[in-house]
């Protein structure tokens, strides 16, 4: 918790201790609760603005936290020191050989070589991806072939349950080896031991050298990458793929056939230092942006770190609009409470007169009404917090309700309770009580006792 929250919490705690332990405080608190209880509906209605305001703050902050966590996890998965370059099929592809239906685009081996000369880059992981049927005797699996290099495992934090991942030697010698994703392994090998067995991919046979642990499919966030289910993958060495499958790959989908010639679909670039991520990104952009190299925009570059900045900006925006939102609703709530308190003060004019005659000072009267307003806004705040927190925790359950589809977007983040927002909103609610309660309280305190006593 930051110092601000600590100050707020201790302020609230002091107030609570004061109310609970001193005679005056206890008496004031009791009186306030009693008169609130006497007018339950009126108190509730006047608290409504505060309740809505506080719960809105809690809920919106929770969604802010939730989306922030989603993005941060995404960035972490993509790597903060990483830059991701992908091949993109240009929409208007005039270079496609229409007759042969071969689409040629994207990053090339020459790009890879040039990028390797940039000093700040510590790692380049190219990857070529295409769907292909994998066979094992009579069983087959529609897997995603990923042709890549050994460092792929580091970049993607892969864990193996058996065997090893690809090694440099595999690439150099164009070994026919493969590593299977969890699903691929399961569907190809029912009872046999996969490790050391062979599978057939295209025209060649590959020896299984490793099995990956189950991986959470990613949620294709922010358009940077499509949703990926790594469990369906089969990994083979880059050079092996180049040798065995050639430059062109036939893709069959829904009866139509197409072919594409893409050297690599993605290059994951790792930069030595977080500070060099953006400059390196600029260098890469200028290299690839050379029209001799890529006459068309057939590549895209993603810097996960940029999204971090975006998140910070979004968060600041959320805070700002929340601030405005909360201020408006608390202002409205405060005015509602002030209105009710003014009516209460008028209604209890005689009581004020009696108390004054019996020895109450102006400050006693001020205190009494102020406590009453603060208790009112405090209870309103607590109810709002309770509602907001309850909502945050039941959100997941609410989403499964039949009507929920109308209310929630599919990709919307799930809320995470933002704990400091509880203290902020509670203390703001109590603060609203002070601000809007002081005028009615002073009005009561400065009444002429004799006139107050005569009031009917």
């Amino acid at each position, binding site marked *: 918790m930051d110092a601000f929250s600590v100050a707020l919490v201790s302020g609230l705690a002091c107030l609570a201790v004061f109310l609970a332990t001193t*005679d*005056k405080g206890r*008496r004031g608190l009791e*009186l306030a609760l*009693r*008169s609130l209880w*006497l007018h339950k509906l009126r108190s509730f209605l006047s608290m409504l603005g505060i309740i809505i305001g506080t719960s809105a703050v809690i809920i919106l902050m929770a969604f802010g936290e939730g989306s922030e966590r989603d993005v941060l996890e995404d960035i972490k998965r993509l790597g903060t020191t990483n830059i991701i370059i992908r091949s993109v099929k240009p929409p208007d592809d005039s270079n496609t050989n229409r007759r042969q239906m071969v689409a040629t685009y994207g990053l090339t081996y020459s790009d890879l070589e040039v990028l390797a000369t940039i000093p700040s880059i510590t790692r380049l992981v190219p990857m070529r991806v295409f769907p292909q049927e994998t066979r094992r005797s009579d069983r087959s699996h529609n897997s995603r072939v990923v042709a890549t290099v050994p460092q792929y495992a580091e970049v993607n934090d892969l864990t193996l349950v058996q065997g090893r991942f690809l090694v440099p030697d595999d690439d150099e010698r164009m070994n026919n080896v493969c590593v299977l994703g969890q699903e691929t392994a399961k569907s190809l090998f029912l009872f046999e031991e996969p490790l050391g067995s062979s599978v057939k991919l295209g025209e060649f046979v590959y020896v299984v050298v490793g099995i990956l642990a189950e991986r959470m499919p990613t949620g294709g966030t922010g358009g940077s990458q499509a949703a990926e289910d790594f469990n369906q993958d089969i990994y083979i060495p880059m050079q092996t793929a180049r040798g065995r499958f050639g430059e062109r790959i036939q893709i069959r989908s829904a009866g139509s056939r197409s072919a594409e010639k893409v050297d690599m679909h993605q290059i994951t670039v790792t930069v030595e230092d977080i500070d060099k991520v953006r400059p390196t990104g600029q260098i890469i952009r200028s290299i690839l942006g050379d029209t001799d190299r890529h006459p068309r925009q057939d590549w895209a570059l993603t810097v996960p770190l940029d999204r971090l900045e975006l998140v910070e900006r979004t968060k600041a925006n959320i805070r700002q609009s929340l601030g405005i939102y909360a201020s408006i609703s608390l202002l409205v709530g405060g005015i509602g409470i002030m209105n009710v308190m003014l009516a209460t003060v008028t209604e209890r004019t*005689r*009581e004020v*007169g*009696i*108390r*004054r*005659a*019996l*020895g*109450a*000072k*102006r*400050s*006693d009267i001020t205190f009494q009404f102020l406590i009453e307003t603060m208790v009112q806004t405090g209870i309103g705040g607590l109810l709002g917090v309770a509602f907001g927190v309850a909502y945050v925790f039941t959100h997941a359950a609410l989403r499964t309700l039949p009507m929920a589809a109308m209310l929630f977007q599919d990709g919307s983040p799930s809320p995470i309770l933002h704990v400091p927002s509880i203290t902020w909103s509670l203390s703001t609610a109590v603060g609203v009580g002070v601000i809007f309660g002081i005028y009615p309280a002073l009005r009561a305190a400065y009444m002429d*006792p*004799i006139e107050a*006593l005569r009031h009917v």
Partner: protein
Amino acid sequence: MTEVLRIESLHKRYSHDSSEVHALKGVNIVVKQGEFVSLMGPSGSGKSTLLNVLGCLDRPTEGSYHLGGEDVSRMGDDQLSSIRSRYLGFIFQQYNLLPQYTVVENIEIPLIYQGIRLDSESRARCVGLAELVGLGHRLDHRPMQLSGGQQQRVAIARSLVNRPQLILADEPTGNLDTKTSHEIMTLLSKLNMSGKTIVMVTHENDIAKWSKRIVRMRDGVIESDEANTPDPIDESGPGLPMHLLEEAA
């Protein structure tokens, strides 16, 4: 006997917009300890105005007011509040109990403003006072559940809780029937006998004759000021054993 209060050439003017009301036009009065004074006079003669000044609820425009030796006529609001809570007890025509409080809680109120800690001891004192006025069995009742006479008795108990030097009553029997009025007057007389100084405003001769001194006002001045011998009180009056009164005093 020591002086409880001394008022000298006291004037009170109310000015509203252009018109000015001269409610008190030079009042001089001294009340000594143990006195039971009735303030009488026609409506508008300034009785309530004088009582409010005596009760430190209002300040005189001119003149001086000493209460227990202190000049209170120039005191500030907070000081007057503290004088009220330490020296004075109020009894009103409309009883003026707080409807949200029970009998005991109503009796307790002046203690809060005196800064006395509410504990079992103070609670016992309030219960004792409720018993003194014959309401020991109605401690947890609310004012709405009590008759006018009973409410006025609670008010009397409340006026005693801070052991005041002076009890001020503005037409304490104004809303009560004859029989109940007599009960209340018996109670006040007994309090006076136990040593309490009382100044009471009343319209009725029947009520005034319970007191030991009758001050008549007219047009903001004191017209007459004479001693009175009250009829001996009926000792069989409700719930008032003398030993309790001694304690309360």
